[in-house]
């Protein structure tokens, strides 16, 4: 008989984090829609408050339904632990503020989701946290931008809408040589296509709202700790983890919890005080998506490759941006990091600029015109006038967002129907 083995991705996507409920036999994850949880005794109450015994206290800090989602995602990513949040933006905020305070500095890719760009460019500076943006394809630029007060490097595994692929091994090397963690937003790749921790990333964030939830019904985010980063090697750089914390009875997270210091502090300070927790009902709904993540992502990826190939050969299309296209600058890197497919968000520039782009979008029937990606249904939007409209012309130029650029999120419909819809809209737009 062969020895025991780690369970596979699809098995964990269905079962991870859940022991079927012993009282009821419920096969589905129960929704524990309770704000607080009973204590057996004073001893148990005090101990749970003090992180001295396992168990639940109050659903802003931890909830049994949410915990299934957290543990499942930690398992799928190969992390040691996870904290779920009310949205993907809340997860990014929690990741940064667990490490950074006034005077801290971040080095980040210049090609980021518009919401993240807003957070780093406009909001966090009000609290004394500044960011230097660099070319996502230039690891040397990340290295050059590191300053004494830099606390982390941030990038997206697949940027949007330019589909720049982060060279995680090289960026991890840059970060680790400087004693910094690499934080990656892996929303568009999902753990089915890419496990950033296995390539050297230290912390992974997701908007669960997108492919992981997959049905466009529920907002959520998650922060996964790889558990590889030794915070104690740079105690002065990471005082939130390496100094005693008066806000929790003088705990020194690094000393007491070692490799899980980051994720423990994120929950015990960040969720407690910022309060952007995920609800039990949302966690349940997101878990329905996680169960089919693998088979959905396979079809998303295959459909997207077919759509990209179709658009690349169309006369009305100036350029197509998706790593499956051989001319894409990150085609080889994507094949190395994501051999199973490089996601289903792509963009293309339509001939004729903004007016034609608008007409194209309004001529689509199957594609839904809305500000989201990662739904099982196909989606479309015009980035320059919507998701990235807060960026100035220079920033739009650096991110490759032209007036004629259209972003598509390819769903899992029949591919023939999607191509027919695109073909018709391209014809009508140029008419």
């Amino acid at each position, binding site marked *: 008989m062969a*020895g*025991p*083995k*780690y*369970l596979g991705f699809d098995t*964990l996507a269905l*079962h*991870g*984090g*859940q*022991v079927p409920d012993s009282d009821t036999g419920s096969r589905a994850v129960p929704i524990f829609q309770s704000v607080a949880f009973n204590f057996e005794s004073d*001893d148990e109450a*005090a*101990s749970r408050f*003090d*992180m*001295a*015994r*396992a*168990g*639940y206290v109050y659903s802003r*800090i*931890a*909830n*049994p339904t*949410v*915990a*299934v989602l*957290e*543990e*499942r995602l*930690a*398992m799928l990513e*190969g*992390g*040691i*632990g*996870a*904290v*779920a949040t009310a949205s993907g933006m809340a997860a990014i905020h929690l990741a940064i503020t667990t490490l950074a305070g006034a005077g801290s500095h971040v080095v980040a890719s210049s090609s980021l989701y518009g919401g993240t760009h807003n957070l780093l460019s406009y909001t966090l500076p009000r609290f004394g946290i500044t960011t230097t943006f660099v070319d996502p394809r230039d690891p040397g630029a990340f290295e050059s931008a590191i300053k004494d007060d830099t606390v982390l490097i941030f990038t997206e595994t697949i940027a949007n809408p330019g589909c720049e692929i982060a060279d995680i091994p090289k960026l991890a090397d840059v970060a680790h040589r400087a004693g910094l963690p690499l934080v990656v937003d892996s929303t568009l790749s999902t753990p089915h296509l890419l496990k950033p921790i296995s390539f050297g990333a230290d912390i992974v964030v997701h908007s669960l709202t997108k492919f992981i939830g997959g049905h466009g019904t529920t907002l959520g985010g998650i922060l996964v700790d790889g*558990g*590889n980063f*030794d915070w*104690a090697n740079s105690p002065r750089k990471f005082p939130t983890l390496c100094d005693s914390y008066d806000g929790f009875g003088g705990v020194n997270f690094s*000393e*007491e*919890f*070692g*490799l*899980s210091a980051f*994720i423990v502090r994120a*929950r015990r300070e960040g969720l407690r005080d910022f309060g952007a927790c995920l609800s039990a009902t949302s966690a349940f709904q997101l878990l329905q998506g996680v169960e089919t993540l693998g088979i959905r992502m396979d079809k998303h990826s295959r459909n997207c490759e077919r759509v990209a190939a179709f658009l690349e050969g169309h006369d009305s299309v100036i350029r197509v941006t998706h790593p499956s296209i051989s001319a894409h600058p990150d085609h080889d890197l994507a094949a190395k990091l994501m051999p199973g497919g490089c996601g289903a968000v792509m963009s293309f520039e339509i001939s004729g600029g903004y007016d034609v782009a608008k007409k194209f979008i309004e001529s689509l029937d199957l594609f839904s015109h809305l500000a989201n990606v990662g739904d099982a249904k196909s989606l479309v939007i015009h980035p320059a006038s919507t998701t990235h409209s807060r960026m100035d012309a220079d920033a739009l130029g650096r991110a490759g967002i032209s007036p004629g650029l259209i972003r598509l999120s390819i769903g899992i419909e029949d591919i023939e129907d999607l191509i027919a819809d695109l073909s018709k809209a391209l014809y009508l737009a140029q008419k």
Partner: protein
Amino acid sequence: MYLKLDGDKIFAAGDMKSRADSESVIVLLHGAGMDHTFWAYNTRYFLSKGLSVIALDFPGHGNSTGPFLETISEMANWVTACLDLLQVDSVALAGHSMGALVALELAGREKERVSRLALLGAGFPMEVSSPLLEAARNDSQAARDMVVLFGHGSRSYLGGNTIAGMNIMEGALRLLQRSNPGALYNDLNACNEYSHGLQAAKDVGAVTTVICGEQDKMTPVSATAGILEQFVDATLSVIPFSGHMMVSESPELTHRCLVAALLPDV
């Protein structure tokens, strides 16, 4: 807190500030390739009760420096030296796996000093398979995988931990990956070569509790039977569904057993 012993820096999580002279100090000893963080919740619990507790990092493990100690006997000597340094006269002693063998050896030697004894994931002999020892000797990832895969009960493969959001198998793997090169082999070899267990158990005077995981494949419940009958006063507590890593696999049940073992009046 940090201690200096023979020129080496020794780390002990916990605190002894509140200790009354007559009170036992709770001493927690980690297993092969691990460190004090294995006991993080337990350490916090005992501290929260106003008790003195120290979770030691063996030399070359966790935050402690110094060369590895190659035998269980040397490790017991070292714990004795730490207790002498701290002027501790009475201890309630708990160890997990390798730490359990050290605790057993120490309790057998120092009847007067050890008032209570808890052995978690303990069996005797604690034989280590040749493939695991060989893989550990080569410091290979296969050795760490074997410890994680054989060290957890089947239910833990699916998770369901009561400490929210934690993936305990990956956590155990990271702890082993973070250990100093050679630490796992040194420790497993020390367990494999330890032969004084039955006599040590006969010599133990402390009230003893053996805490075992129902699905422990490394030190199965059946492996505790031989040693259990050697103690003057010992009981067996079996943690349902748990494997060898019961402290993380079933934290609440293990906590209750540990408290009952070390603090009979609570």
